[in-house]
């Protein structure tokens, strides 16, 4: 299992469409994926789970992945977050 911290940087935070993009990206990997905001940990492949993180801009999340493609999964998710989910700001 590997774990990385990442900060939400897009203006709107982890809103519904961004959450959908994250979940779709996570679903492409076989590994298990969990995301934590403080003490709250959710399944990174669940839209409702991701939404209940209520992560606004500046929120630091911790991402954990466990499985054979865990490295690719974490890199992919972090790249998506750092690309502002494809949003302009």
């Amino acid at each position, binding site marked *: 299992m590997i774990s990385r911290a990442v900060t939400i940087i897009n203006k709107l935070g982890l809103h519904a469409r961004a959450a959908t993009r994250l979940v779709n990206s996570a679903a492409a990997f076989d590994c298990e994926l969990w995301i934590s905001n403080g003490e709250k940990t959710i399944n990174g492949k669940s839209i*409702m789970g991701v939404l209940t993180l209520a992560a606004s801009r500046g929120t630091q999340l911790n991402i954990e992945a466990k499985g054979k493609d865990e490295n690719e999964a974490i890199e992919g998710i972090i790249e998506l977050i750092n690309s502002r989910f494809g949003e302009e700001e």
Partner: protein
Amino acid sequence: MSVGIVVITHGQVGEAIIKAAEFILDHSLEDICLVPFIQSGAHPTGHRELKLAIDQSDAGDGVLVLTDLVGASPANLASGLLPEIRGKVVTGINLAMLLRVWNYREMPLNTLASKAVAGGKRGIEAIDA
């Protein structure tokens, strides 16, 4: 095959929730059958339309009917059809419920109904400062 999904609500509630879910998911939910509920005077109509929609949506695995207010006419219409159909009715539709149902639509009817209830509840939180 998968469970058919039918939505019947007051006014434009169901349509608005479906459109919002389509915006969030960025694709069409055209497999979901939206049935207009018409309150004409004191007597609601739509029994025949709802039955037809349920029958057409049932590809063999049954139909999940999502509706808004428990005890209200759309929910009563749907639950009144239960003896005639292979289906389950879940009240209290919200966006969280619909997203959950859509994500698990390949699951068996009873499981999907449970997912709908859990998903709808999960979308309700009091957010502290």
